[in-house]
Structure formats: C-alpha cells, structure tokens
C-alpha cells in the first residue's frame, strides 16, 4: 500500500498514516499503539476481561502503571486508612501489574503522580508515538507531537491484548494563536478562550493542531496544559509540532532514547511537523493580545469569560434551550445575572491536576503567594502533579512560600479535580480551581467550580474572591 507522497501532510496525517497496520474496506483502520498508561480506576475491568478470556498482554513493555485518581493526598498517606473501596482498586492494580508483568510505580514512590504528568516526566512520552490511556486527558501528551487520546476500558483491554485499536481517521483542525500573550495570561487562558470560542463540541470529530507564535513560545508545560484541555473543546487529541524545546525536554529522561538512538529519534521527529501547504478541514485564528485571564461562571467549560466580565443574563439569549441551560447553570452555581465576576467570593482553592499540576504552575502560584496571606475565609490547597514535581518545588523553596502564605501543601494525585476520595468540596462550597471541568458535582456533590489559571487561583486565595491577577 503506497501513500500519495506528493500531497502535503499535516502532523496528524503523518502520525495516523505511520501507524496503520491494516486498512479495512469500510474505512476503519487497524492502528498500532506504541504506549499505554494505566491507572487504578479504568483498568481493573480490562485485566478481568483478559483473565476471563485467557488472554495475555501483547507487549507488557509498552505499558506503564501508576495510581492517581484515588490515592489519598494528605501528609499521612502512608498510614491513612483509605476508604475500603478505594483500597480495593489500588490493590487490584498492584496485583494485576504483578501478574501480567507491567511496570508499576507504587503510591509511595517519588515518581508517583498523575498519569499525564508521569508519562512525560519519565520520558515514556515521546514525539511520533501513539499513546493511549483510559482517561480523556490523555490528549495532554499531544504537546510532544504524539497522537494521544483517551479511551474506554474495552479499548484499554483491546490494546492490552493486541497493541492496536480499530479507528476511523479524524478530521484536521488548526487553531492558530499569533503574537505575544499579555502579562498574567497563560496557556490555561488560551485553552479556556478557545473553548469559549468554539464550544465544548466544537472539536468533535477533529484532531486540533495548535500553531502560531504564541504556541511556539509556550514552554512544554504550557503546551501540555493547552493540549490537555483539547478534550474540553470536544477533540479527543490536541497536537503541537515537536521542536527543539520538545527534544530538549525529552533528552536525558529515564525512558528516553540515549546517545546515537536519541540522535536517530530526533532526525525522525524533525520530519513530523506539518508540511508547507498542508490542508486542514477547519482553521481558526486568534490573536494572543486579545486573550485576557479567563474564568468560568457556569457548569460547562464553554461558560467562560474574561475576568473583567459579568455573569451573563439568560434573558439576553434567544435560543430557548440555551436559555434554559444557562438558567440551570446559574441556579446550580448560586449566581445572579449581572454580578461582576470579581465580586464573587470563594471558600476553597485547588491548585493542581493534570492540567495545572506541573512545576511551572507551582512557581506561578508561589510567585503570587510570596509575602501575602491566604484570606481567612479560604481553605487553599496545592496538590503537586507528581512526587518529582513536589520534590523540585521543595528544592526551590516554593513549598515554604506557599505554606507561609497559608496554603496547604499536599501529596501528589488527582485529588479534588474529580473528587473520588475525601478530597472534595462540600455542598454549595465555591472553589477557584486550576482543574479542567466545572460540571455539576465534578468536585463534589453540589460543589461549585470556577476554572482558571494557577496565578488566578492563587490571587483568589489571597483576596477571597475571583480576582484579576494583573491588578493584585
């Protein structure tokens, strides 16, 4: 089977075509999967399926396991009595990895953390790969120019048994952000502004490639934040073309290729960026200077506005279904139309998650916290995305700055991003959160989430209300 070589290809076209094992007549393709990361919540049923069918793993070396969703994040995590059902999932992961020969990073290992932070950190994530995980935020790894996407447990099992998936090609979308970001504006604000622009279903059926000078100027951490939230725009995968920044990040990590193999890999990775003249099915152009710090006001990530905005009025909406949805969101959030976003007071702050739990995020929070004090009505948490992020932050003294300001410095895990364990909001508690979803109940039943960047969340912790970090 030969490809039409002359046609310019996008980064996604190249990733897709280089992983086709077989094309079916019906348009579906058998796609090779280079890497799979697993965690305790979406893997037990897959292992159980293998066991029942008497199947083995196709390639245990292509897998890495780490618990994250359910692990306690308090200082006493080693001895804390975990909820019985949480412990069952952790024990199942330990047992399954041992039985099937999968490399496993246990909870008390320094390398433990959120799957999407651990993969890149360990060099498990590399450009040009296909990477899957039973978690929708697998899109994060697209920051390296890898085709990475979240899958359900049945697909986890399919990859375990066959190292492949049966997939249909997605369409190509390009979102170009040109120019320089203003002070106090971050990758998170770009992500939220994009979602506000195209909506949570805007990227459905597409892979989004982020291009433009504002994207190239982002650090690898920033690119991961951006690709992480592609799924909130409906796209299963986000992509940023690999460049020198990418190669420098990957070089020297535990699982990265070394020496001549690294040089050989880089030569290949340099062939991945989209060709001049490659066609996209959809293109969107944004200017970096138009993006202000963003906060969400409702129960969908597309319910987002610049911090200077006011809570919108359902009466201004023509479409009857949207009017009803907006009113429902305002009722749930306990907000009144017309209220200035900066007048909304908060009781909780969560800085962490696979979106914003990296070292750059902790630095941004500490820079705001330095010499200031958390508002007396606010309980503010910082949950590093991995043990290595935590150690690095402690080496830089960031933990002490945050603790001195009144933040609680915790152990790594998904924590209050999805609130599976004791880390959650109480009913009607309002939280400034650096996580990725503000759905009803996401951070705890009846909890109220406002999504924003780490600097904005830290600023909210200090003032006790949603705050424009540029004016602090």
């Amino acid at each position, binding site marked *: 089977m030969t490809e039409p070589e002359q046609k310019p290809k996008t980064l996604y076209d190249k990733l897709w075509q280089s992983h086709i*094992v*077989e094309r*079916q007549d*019906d348009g*579906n393709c*058998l796609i*090779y999967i*280079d890497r799979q990361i697993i965690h305790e*919540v*979406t893997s*037990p*049923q897959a292992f*159980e399926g293998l066991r029942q*069918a008497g*199947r083995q793993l196709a390639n245990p070396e292509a897998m890495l396991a780490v618990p994250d969703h359910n692990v306690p994040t308090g200082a006493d995590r080693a001895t804390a009595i975990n*909820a019985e059902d*949480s412990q*069952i*999932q952790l024990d*199942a992961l330990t047992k399954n990895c041992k039985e099937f020969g999968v490399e496993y990073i246990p909870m008390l290992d320094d390398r433990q953390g959120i799957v999407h932070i651990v993969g890149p950190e360990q060099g498990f994530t*590399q450009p040009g*790969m296909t990477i899957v995980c*039973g978690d*929708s935020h697998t899109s994060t790894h697209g920051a390296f120019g890898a085709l990475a*996407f*979240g*899958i*359900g*447990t*049945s697909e986890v*099992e*399919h990859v375990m*048994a*066959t*190292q*492949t998936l*049966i997939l*249909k090609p997605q369409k190509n979308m390009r979102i170009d952000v040109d120019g320089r970001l203003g002070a106090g504006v971050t990758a998170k604000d770009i992500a939220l502004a994009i979602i506000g622009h195209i909506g*949570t*279903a805007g990227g*459905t059926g597409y892979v989004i490639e982020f291009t433009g000078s504002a994207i190239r100027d982002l650090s690898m951490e920033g690119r991961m934040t951006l690709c992480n939230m592609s*799924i909130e725009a*409906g796209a*299963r995968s986000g992509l940023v073309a690999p460049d020198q920044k990418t190669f420098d990040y990957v070089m020297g990590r535990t699982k990265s290729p070394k020496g001549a*193999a690294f040089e*050989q*890999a880089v030569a*290949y990775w340099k062939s991945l960026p989209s060709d001049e003249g490659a066609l996209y099915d959809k293109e969107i152009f944004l200017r970096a200077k138009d993006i202000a710090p963003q906060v969400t006001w409702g129960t969908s990530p597309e319910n987002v506005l610049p911090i200077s905005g006011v809570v919108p009025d359902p009466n201004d909406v023509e479409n009857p*279904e949207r009017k009803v*949805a907006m009113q429902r969101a305002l009722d749930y959030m306990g907000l009144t139309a017309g209220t200035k976003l900066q007048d909304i007071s908060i009781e909780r702050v969560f800085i962490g998650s696979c979106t914003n739990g990296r070292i750059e995020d902790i630095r941004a929070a500490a820079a705001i916290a330095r010499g200031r004090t958390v508002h007396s009505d606010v309980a503010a948490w910082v949950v590093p995305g991995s043990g290595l992020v935590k150690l690095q932050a402690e080496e830089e003294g960031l933990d002490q700055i945050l603790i001195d300001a009144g933040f609680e410095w915790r152990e790594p895990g998904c924590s209050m991003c*999805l*609130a*599976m364990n004791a880390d959650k909001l109480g*009913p009607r508690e309002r939280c400034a959160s650096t996580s990725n*979803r503000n*759905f*009803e*109940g*996401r951070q705890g*039943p009846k909890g109220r989430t406002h999504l924003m960047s780490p600097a904005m969340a830290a600023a909210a912790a200090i003032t006790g209300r949603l705050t424009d970090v540029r004016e602090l």
Partner: protein
Amino acid sequence: MDKFLKLRAIAAPLPMANIDTDMIIPQQHLKTIKRTGLGQFAFSNIRYHDDGSERADFVLNKPAYRQAQILVTGPNFGCGSSREHAPWALKDFGFKCVIAPSFADIFYGNCFKNGILPIILPQETIDLLLDDAGRGANAIITIDLENQEITGPDGGKISFDVDPYRRHCLLNGLDDIGLTLQKKDVIQNYEAKKRLSQPWLFKG
C-alpha cells in the same frame, strides 16, 4: 456480547444538551472493579435527593419510564470523562439505544463496545421523537438495526446511518478483540518493520 437485532421498547425523553459522563455516573460510583451493578447509580445526582429518596420529577423515576430501554436526548451527549462506567450504568439500567443529535467521540465508541446502539439524527427528527417519547408507556419505538430504520408509535419511519463495521459487530454480537487477534500476523509484520525503522521504541 448479546446480538443487537431489533429492539421494541419504551423511549424516555431527556431533552438536555451537553449531558456529561459525570452526570451519567458521578465519580463517587467509580470505585468498582466490575462492569455490572451501576444501573442503580445512573444519573444519581439528578435522580435522587440527598437522603437517597427518588426525585419524582426525574424522568426515569416516573412509572411510565422505569422499563425504558431507549433514551432520546440532547446534543453532545456523553461529553467529558472517558469513563466506560457511563455506558455500563446505562446498560445496567436497561438502556440498549441512545438517540441524540450528536455524541462526544469517546462515549460514542464506548457504547458499541457494550452492545448499546447510539443513533445520530437531526435535531428536527429528535424533536419528533421527544414528542413521541413524551407519551409515557405508550411511547413504544422500534429500532431495526438490520434495516437501519426506526418506527415510531404511529408507524412513521425514520432511517439512520451507522458505521458498517460497528453495525456488523452489534448485529452478530462480536467481540472485536477476538477479531483483531485473528490478524496477529499482520500486526507482527508491522511491528517487525517498526523495530528496524524506529528501534528506540523497543527494548532490545
């Protein structure tokens, strides 16, 4: 997996946009290591009061819809988390078919893996089906996957599209892991070539 041929069942209307998988199955119910038993928790945050009693106004708590096997709902259904617990919960409740103007990609794929047929139809057609579904226990709809046709309670016909491979798997109740394993040689050939061209991806 059970074969999906023809389904004649009650349709329940849930006309909300952007129903996310957190709403379909909240995180507090994800701590299971089984695929079954989640039906009681489907939509739990909007289906039950804080004390665990049922909310009478929620559609699936109404006597007419307790046996519903078809869900007619709004656009972007199943957005958010990739948790397959969402289709597991729907299936365990009794749903075998979800009809919406659009679905989120991951959820859409997860349905087929569990014998649930997701059908995409234009909003105008959904509006008609929502009307039909509003008739309670009389809202009997027939889904014929073989002929890709829906028959409404009054005999009106609506045709729908579905990916041929996924249709084939549903009609025959096929386990696609078994099918893929039959292609082991092709996969190994691909892998052997890759070991030569991208050796850094493999250990030794």
